């Protein structure tokens, strides 16, 4: 199944639930869905296209909202993206569909403070245990104290 067939099939099944879709480059499929359908779309992709592999989950601080991208697939990359509210960042987990997504979700939880509802073991994975609560390094308002190297001898 090539990239266009996948995109057409997704458009056909989900219709207006897909806000935006495109093929920016060969073998890359971009779709944007509302966060309510995020899990549903991923479940459909995993089950119908026989793609059990998740490459990673990227979280991006876009200012007022956080963008979550799930990169799925082995030969064809399907980027399922959704936007969630930054003040109340919550989204369904996909670990029950893809067990391998566990660590990626924990990473996003750790660094951007996104709460994955239903994750079996949502703990810190990267930051130290005594890191202050509510400080998320990859959010834009977090400014590290030494963003530049030391100067002088």
């Amino acid at each position, binding site marked *: 199944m090539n990239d266009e067939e996948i995109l057409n099939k997704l458009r056909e099944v989900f219709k207006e639930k897909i806000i935006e879709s495109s093929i920016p480059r060969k073998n890359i499929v971009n779709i944007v869905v509302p966060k309510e359908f995020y899990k549903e779309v991923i479940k459909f992709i995993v089950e119908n296209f026989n793609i059990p592999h998740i490459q990673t989950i990227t979280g991006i601080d876009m200012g007022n909202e956080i963008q979550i991208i799930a990169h799925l697939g*082995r030969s064809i*990359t399907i980027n399922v993206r959704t936007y969630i509210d930054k003040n109340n960042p919550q989204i369904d987990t996909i670990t029950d569909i893809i067990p*391998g997504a566990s660590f990626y979700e924990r*990473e996003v939880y750790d*660094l951007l403070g996104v709460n994955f509802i239903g994750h079996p073991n949502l703990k*810190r994975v990267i*930051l130290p245990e005594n890191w202050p609560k509510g400080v998320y390094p*990859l959010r834009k308002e977090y400014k*590290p*104290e030494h963003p530049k190297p030391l100067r002088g001898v």
Partner: protein
Amino acid sequence: MSSFTIPIGPQHPALPEPILLKLEVEGEYVVGVDVDISYMHRGIEKAMEYRNYIQNIYLAERICGICNVAHTVCYTLNVEKLYDKEIPPRAQYLRVIIEELNRIHSHLLWLGVAGHEIGFETLFMYVWRDRERVMDLIETITGNRVNTAYTTIGGVRRDITSDIEYKIRKTMDIVEERTKYYKSVAAAEPTIIARTKDIGILKTIDAINLCAVGPLLRASNVKNDVRADAPYAAHDEVPFNVITYPYCDVFSRILVRVDEIFECINMIRYCLDHLPKGPIRIKLPLKPPKGEAVTRVEAPRGELLHYVLSDGSEKPYRYKVRTPTLANIPSLCRMLTSSGDYIVKIADVPIAYASIDPCLCCTGRVQIVDIEKNKKWIWSWEELKEYSKKEFKKS
């Protein structure tokens, strides 16, 4: 029998890098494992947002020392996608050569470490000695042994002369011969087989479900390689075989990596034979246009993913790196947990752990600035001297 916890790491002779494996142990049997990978976080993703694209080449290179070429290739391919310009084919071929050289050295390094983990010091010494030839070759081509700084945005920085080409061919012959010998040793030495056969089993179905990548996945009999599935650089033109072995254990991981070395050698020879003529790089402006890009390359440890979001300025808005080791950690936890007939012993932990070829400095990339509010994390030279004097007097 009551169980107790044995911490392996963060400092442990078997671990070249800090990781904490909290092993739940009953006698010699491991019944549970908890992994803490938070010891190597350097904040590279955040730091990349503060540096321009040129500076980030060298920062990306330092995500990992061993597979640094994979990181630079991935980074440069990724950023080049933003520009949407054609890169000279000669540069793409040279990237393949240096990448495969890097893979050879990484796999040889791993073979030595595997020997070390099962207490076979002699194999360790011999393999690392022969790996030096590849390191010398990398030094000759790029100017440095480890941090190659070879690929850059728009191409590669140095060309291969006929003199260097001759050296590469000669070294490849020697490395091929030595690798053949090590393969025969691994297949014939009873103690190696005893320590690696049926150890650290990761069944095919588990490997797929837990999203394992790279040699770990291929050793579980899944034909998967980014170079074949989604070719990048010149990989669509260079023929090679994807190696798989069906045993799903550490022994099959040894065989996969050793056989991959042969494939790498053949790919390098092919590249040298078919090296296109032409320029090796094009100049690109410092500021890429707005956009985003995802690139995957096959690092020595598996699928490596870089994601960039550019807002049109000279610094990336967001840069995301997903390294192969992070993808393999769920599989590692599965490998180290006894369940049913499958029993893991403490003695098997180091080699099973090493069999995923972990590279933790890849895995952690987040900045630690201050742990306690009043304590400075970065000390000045004088402060450090004062502190050490004070501590010295105390003792």
